[in-house]
Every structure is written in structure tokens, then in C-alpha cells.
């Protein structure tokens, strides 16, 4: 399976010219305890510590966060859209993985 790095332009993008600025970070925020961190966006920062501070300013100005994660975008390995078939098709035929596949008489009660 070939993988590509998130945000790396695919083959249809003209290659970037000119200087590239500070690295890109993806920002994840837990809006309250008990919930998952959720991807909210990205930002550029020279290092992770600054990225965290910037994320605080950009993404939590209205109490949206209880916790922030930042991760350099280049560290993320992402699947490619062209792999959609091989990756996900095998699961579509396995309908027996869903509870609704089985007919159980009403008399059986809670099951």
C-alpha cells in the first residue's frame, strides 16, 4: 500500500515554488472532558510550543477547549483516495457484522 503524507500536494498540483515558511501543525481540541480531541484546523508555527500558544489564540477564543493537541502535519501518514476500494470495499459485503443482520423473535426479550 502506498501512503502519502497529509498535505503533500498530489500529482496534479504544480510543485511549490519559492520559500516555504514555518512548518504546519494540525490542531486537535477536546471541547470538554469526556469527549475526544477533535481536529479543528491547522496553523504554522516555528515549533510545537509556539503552535500550542497560537492554537490557544486562534481556536479557543470562545471557551471551545479543555485541552489542545498539536502535531506537525508532516508526521501524519494518510491513506490515499485512490486506495478507497482496496481499503474499504471488503467490509461492505460483511453485513453479518451488524446486529440487524440477525432475526431474533420478539419473545426473546432484551437481546
Amino acid at each position, binding site marked *: 500500500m502506498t501512503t502519502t503524507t497529509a498535505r503533500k500536494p498530489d500529482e496534479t498540483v504544480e510543485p511549490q515554488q*519559492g520559500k516555504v515558511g514555518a512548518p504546519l501543525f494540525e490542531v486537535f481540541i477536546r471541547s470538554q472532558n469526556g469527549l475526544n480531541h477533535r481536529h479543528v484546523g491547522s496553523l504554522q508555527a516555528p*515549533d510545537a510550543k509556539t503552535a500550542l500558544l497560537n492554537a490557544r489564540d486562534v481556536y479557543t477564543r470562545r471557551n471551545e477547549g479543555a485541552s489542545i493537541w498539536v502535531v506537525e502535519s508532516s508526521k501524519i501518514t494518510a491513506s490515499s483516495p485512490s486506495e478507497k476500494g482496496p481499503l474499504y470495499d471488503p467490509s461492505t459485503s460483511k453485513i453479518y457484522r451488524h446486529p440487524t443482520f440477525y432475526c431474533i423473535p420478539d419473545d426473546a426479550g432484551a437481546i
Partner: protein
Amino acid sequence: MYAQMIASQASDEDPKRLAAFQKRIDAGEKIEPKDWMPSEYRKTLIRQIGQHAHSEIVGQLPEGNWITRAPTLERKAILLAKVQDEAGHGLYLYCAAETLGISRDQLTEMLLDGRMKYSSIFNYPTLTWADIGAIGWLVDGAAIMNQVPLQRTSFGPYARAMIRICKEESFHQRQGFDIMMKMCNGSKEQKTMAQNALDRFWYPSLMMFGPSDSDSIHSEQSMAWKIKMNSNDELRQKFVDQTVPQANLLRLTVPDPNLKWKDKRKGYDFTMPDWDEFLAVINGNGPCNADRLSARKKAWTEGQWVRDGLQAHAKKNANIMIAAE
């Protein structure tokens, strides 16, 4: 709008691929950065999102003019918060544009050397405090009119940026109207100031939606790709119909002798702005174009040492960490 006169044309790629792409869009699917997309779709989006982002950033300047002169500490805090939001909006949009394979530095350089534009509206000066009210009420009001439908645009990162922006934008419009209400209920001088602000910002606000549909540059392709959701005239009409009753509520007069409610079509007849003025402003000859661009250039050049310093610090710390391992 915040993005004006964005022409789009059909791509000359494999018709089969184009048709499959169009089918996805028609089915309401979102296009994500790594999906295949026609090169014209990508190019048009870069121009549109880039112009939109530049507008958010340049849009801070007319309002920034009044931060030190806001009439009360509370108004000052509110205006600061609004201007800070605009910086955030610019950032969301630059990030969305970057997923299309262009860097933020490239976009900034294109703004500074005049290859990219920003909305015509930010080339008008803010002469009095009432202008800050008029901007929030009219300019942010017009922006919302355009941005709400764009939340459903076909390009995922753009749609998501719009959702975040719209969430924050309604405070902007309301704080502007709040300023106008205060001034309209104030002294005679304050009311006059509010009326003057409406007089000066009315037509430039109407220009934000871009030229009339009949004179508009080709946007059929953008419509089909769901990059543009409504026609310029459609949104302008909606804006006028929404704003005139608000002006009445403020007991202000919209500076248009031809303004008339038409029962039959349930909308106002109104005078179009001066399109020659619009073209002059968008082509660099508005009252503040030179000021705005030189302010951006100054910020970019004089901020270079900060960006360099941060990078150097990050590099040094990374080296220290490696040495400690």
C-alpha cells in the same frame, strides 16, 4: 464580496474525469484536498480563497485605525476582539488555500506585489467612530450574506472555514448595529455622524457583491462547481431587503432617492452603485489603496526579524534536544 470578480473557465481535461467530478458535486459530495480535481477548479479556488483571506487581513486596517480612539474601554475591548477575529478568519482561509498546494508566503507575496486583490470595500477610510458601527452593520452584514451559503460550498476545507467564520461573524454585525443604535439615540451631532457614515458606506457596501449579473465576468463554471452559490444581484437584493428596514429602525435615511418597496416582487427597487468607481477602486485607485498596501508591506518587512528569530530559536532548541538524547 470578500472575493470579487473571480472568473472561472472550464477545464480542458479528460471529459470522462470531468463528468465524474461534476457528478460528485451534483450529488452534494465534498471534494477533499487529495481527491482528483480539475486544474481550473483548483486555480479558481486558490484565487477566490486567497482573495477572501487577504480581505480579512487588510480588513483589519480600517478598524485598527479606531482601536486607540474607541470612546470607552468596553468599546475598545470589543473592537480589539473583532479585529483579532478577522486575523483568525484570514488564517482559517490561508490554511484552506494551502491545502490546494500553494504556500501562505506565496499568497502574501502575490498580495504585496499586486498580483492578487482584496475586497474593494477596505479601500475606503474610517473617518469617524460611526464608521466602525457602519462597517460592522453593513460590511459584515454583506459578508455574512455571502458566507452563509458558502458553508455548503463543494470544497471541504473552504466549507469548514466558512462554518467557523460564520459562527464568529454574527457578533461582528451585532456590535456594529449596537454602535449605530447608541449613536442614533444620542446627541444631534452623534446622529448626524451616524447618518454620514451610512451615506458614505451604503454604495461601497453594495459594490461588495460585485458587478451586475448582466455585466459579470463568467461565473457559470463556478456556479456549476458550487464555488459560487448565488449570483451577485441575487445577494445584493437580499442585502438591500434586509438592511433598509434596519435603517428605518435607526431612523436613518438610505441615501437613495429611488429606493422603493415593490409589493409585487416583494423587494426594493434601488440604485446601483457607480461601477466606474468600483473598477477604479479594485484596480488600485480608491481613496486608501496605497495606504493599505503600504501598511501590509511595512508589517511584512518589519516583521521579518520576528519570523527569523522564532525560526532560529526553534532550530536551536531542536539541536539542544538532539544533543541531550
